[in-house]
């Protein structure tokens, strides 16, 4: 009976999906007017940012990015709350077995390189593909590698929460500063510099570095919490 209901629901959903996809190409290219030309033009002429996606995410749609960061923060907080009771004291014991010495030395060798790649990705977010979220996730994978290899590797929750709150507060402060100087939240108020320079794009690199720190701290804390869960 359950299976029949599930199949029925799937069939209905599939039917409507097919219908809506059929309509997609009917009226010609969908996006002909709207803000896309505005974004493309303003990105180069006003903000002097090489990566259009970054300028949209951080500047034109910066408020949405703040929302995304908040969602990630809430998810990490909820997980920490659920696992709080079952967690060991910090650094006491990981749920994993100790690794072999090959894995240990290999991860020790790779760890700085991964952190460097992550930092590069979010510092150069306005010049090349990538940005705060990607760089933060890469840094978190570096910490994950270390946590898997060394069962006594520990990160301080106090430092992580300090970095996280610092980055979050400064994100909002920069947004409010734009409000004071220009008029809208996250309005660019700093000199934009030259196209393709590292110091260009006004507040965009600063915001992305803050987002990178925040995401890295959140994901690392999340992994650490999961890995140090008590077994019974």
């Amino acid at each position: 009976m359950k299976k029949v209901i599930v199949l029925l629901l799937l069939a209905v959903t599939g039917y409507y999906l097919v219908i809506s996809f059929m309509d997609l190409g009917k009226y010609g290219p969908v996006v002909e007017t709207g803000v896309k030309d505005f974004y493309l033009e303003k990105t180069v002429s006003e903000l002097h940012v090489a990566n259009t996606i970054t300028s949209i995410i951080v500047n034109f749609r910066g408020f949405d990015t703040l929302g995304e960061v908040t969602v990630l923060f809430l998810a990490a907080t909820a997980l920490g709350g659920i696992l709080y009771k079952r967690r060991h004291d910090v650094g006491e014991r990981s749920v994993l077995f100790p690794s072999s010495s090959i894995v240990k030395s290999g991860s020790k060798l790779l760890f700085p390189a991964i952190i460097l790649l992550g930092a590069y990705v979010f510092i150069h977010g306005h010049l090349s593909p990538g940005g705060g979220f990607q760089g933060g996730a890469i840094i978190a994978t570096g910490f994950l590698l270390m946590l898997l290899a060394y069962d006594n590797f520990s990160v301080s929750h106090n430092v992580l929460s300090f970095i996280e709150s610092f980055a979050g507060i400064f994100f909002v402060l920069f947004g409010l500063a734009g409000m004071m100087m220009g008029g809208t939240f996250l309005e660019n108020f700093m000199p934009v510099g030259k196209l393709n320079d590292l110091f260009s794009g006004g507040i965009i690199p600063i915001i992305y570095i803050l987002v990178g720190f925040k995401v890295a701290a959140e994901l690392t804390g999340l992994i650490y919490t999961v890995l140090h869960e008590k077994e019974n």
Partner: protein
Amino acid sequence: MAFVILMFFLIALMIGAAIYAIVQKDLLYAVIATGVISLILSALFFLLQAPDVALTEAAIGVALTTIIFIITIRNTVRNEDKFKDKDDIKSAVK
């Protein structure tokens, strides 16, 4: 033309990995198959000129999600067939 063939090859590989993940009873292999799906998806994003999304997918989908699933398997049961009842799984989790 070569591009389209490559795309279809990658998509077919993705579907194959997904089917393997469903059919496979050893959950560790199933999780690795889902990691392969993410990896191919990341390559597809890159081919479709979305390198930003490809980076995210590679970091989150391939590394973080897979590892978290592997940790979960490590703490619960590895074989799907072994435990039929809910109570069995509960006793295995402790």
